[in-house]
């Protein structure tokens, strides 16, 4: 199986966000909101950390 770094991160973030939303919240509206926020936070923080580490890779 071949996955790019971004695809692996996207899959991981999506699955974990979905599961966390179901575990943490009880109403459907709250779950959808929580899952979307968590997914967004996963992606934004990972990309931000990636850019912060960029100078170190050179």
């Amino acid at each position, binding site marked *: 199986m071949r996955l790019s770094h971004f695809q692996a991160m996207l899959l991981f973030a999506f699955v974990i966000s979905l*599961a966390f939303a179901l575990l943490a919240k009880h109403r459907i509206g709250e779950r959808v909101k929580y899952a979307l926020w968590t997914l967004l936070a996963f992606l934004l923080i990972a990309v931000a950390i990636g850019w912060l580490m960029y100078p170190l890779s050179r």
Partner: protein
Amino acid sequence: MAEKQQLEKQAGDNPARAGLVAVAAWLVPGLGHLILRKWGRAAIYFLAVGALAVTGLALRGNIFSVTSDDPFGFLGFLADLGAGVFYFISKFLEMGGPDVSRAAGDYGTRFFATAGVLNLLCVLDAHEIARGRKP
């Protein structure tokens, strides 16, 4: 508070049944919720844990054994074991062994460990529902 007491009353005080639900939930991800008739959650937990475990295996991550020498390896084993039936299937299949020389293989190790830890959270959730502490 009143809602919590009502849930506990409905579930009845049956720790043995809650224990059995927890064991079933560990063995097959989502089975605990299925027993408790939480169909949607059961399906999503099974798919979530299954997706992480199968991806981890397909990326040729390291699936730890109990015979691991270092303490971190033993912790990895405990995390992997949390995936229940997926751990035993992965040990049975052993698709060419781990390959952590590439980043993908290392990701695979993390994916599988996360599947196990996530399933343990689902086990706790099923146990709490069975005890009437959660809706």
